[in-house]
């Protein structure tokens, strides 16, 4: 009934088999590109006219922040597949997205804080942008806690999916917080509906970081999901 390519998208076993040969390439490309991106950002671009060298943390903070939200969006889509169609593969992928996404959210908050102290004059402020990102972390944590403590696989998957849906309201809030309200955090430089406000001479390492981090994230998620799959096979769930 299903052509071969469909099966790869629906069945765990076929999915992981199809993607297995690419895992090493993803890892190597990801690590190399991130390394080159970081190196470029640190040493090859000029300092900012007002922030000086402190702005360089942008090359970590921005891709991490973008992915912390992107992974949540991915988790929402995967959770729909779990909630409506009970597809195990997407439960594994949603779990992977939650784990990696939570990590990126923590790193976003840390890099942001380190950037904020010298630039704004504070490590933290209960500002909309910052607080909503923290709330994202709470939703990620809830999803992970549900999976860790609900023993019935199917129930865990469904509950995690529902919590994920509830938290999805937060995504437009985080993104538009700097437009809808007065925020200490500056407006979007690249993901707004306008030309980038970053000078071209400083923009290219950011593109490298995005490419590298997305590739690395794919490797992380596939490895994590495959691990969950093997675990579930062993447990016979």
């Amino acid at each position: 009934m299903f052509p071969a390519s469909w099966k790869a998208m629906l069945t765990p076993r076929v999915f992981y088999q199809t993607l297995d040969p690419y895992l090493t390439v993803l890892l190597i490309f990801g690590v190399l590109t991130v390394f080159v991106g970081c190196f470029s950002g640190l040493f090859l671009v000029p300092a900012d006219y007002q922030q000086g060298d402190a702005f360089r943390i942008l090359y970590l903070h921005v891709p991490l922040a973008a992915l912390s939200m992107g992974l949540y969006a991915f988790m929402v889509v995967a959770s729909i597949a779990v909630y409506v169609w009970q597809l195990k593969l997407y439960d594994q992928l949603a779990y992977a997205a939650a784990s990696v996404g939570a990590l990126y959210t923590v790193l976003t908050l840390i890099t942001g804080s380190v950037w904020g102290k010298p630039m704004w004059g504070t490590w933290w402020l209960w500002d909309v942008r910052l607080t909503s990102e923290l709330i994202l972390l709470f939703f990620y944590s809830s999803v992970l806690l549900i999976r860790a403590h609900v023993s019935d696989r199917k129930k865990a998957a469904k509950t995690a999916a529902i919590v994920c849906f509830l938290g999805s309201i937060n995504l437009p809030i985080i993104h538009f917080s700097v437009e809808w309200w007065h925020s200490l955090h500056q407006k979007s430089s690249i993901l707004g509906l306008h030309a980038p406000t970053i000078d071209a001479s400083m923009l290219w390492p950011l593109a490298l970081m995005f490419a590298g981090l997305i590739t690395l994230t794919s490797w992380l998620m596939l490895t994590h999901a495959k691990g969950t799959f093997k675990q579930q096979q062993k447990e016979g769930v």
Partner: protein
Amino acid sequence: MHPKRQQKITQLFISMLCFGAAVACLLWAMQDSMNSYFTPKEALKKGKVGRVIQLGGLVLEGSLQQDSKGCFLFAVTDEQDTLNVRFCGLLPALFREGQGVIAIGPYQGESQLIEATRLLAKHDEYYRPPGTEAVQRRLG
């Protein structure tokens, strides 16, 4: 499609719509709390005398002075209204005239000085190397 699945999709869609509307209403109602600062115009309209306010705007060009005690006096403007601030402490690294700032202190009313206990520098989303034409334009 399987009728139960169709039902689930519809339920999910409608629930999220309602939940989204509820959250939107909540956010609309708590607007003032969501803001990290009031602009001078908003402060004049909504500020409560004696309450601590977070005043945000640009440091008015030419307004920065230092008084006899070493405290800084400057005006915060949103290009429509202006409020004066006094701050006795270390200025944030990015603080300068024409730059964004948030001053935290008790609001004393129209054309009254705000004794700021804390200053936060706010910068915009423009990143430029020093000395470029765009920078010259922005710095006046």
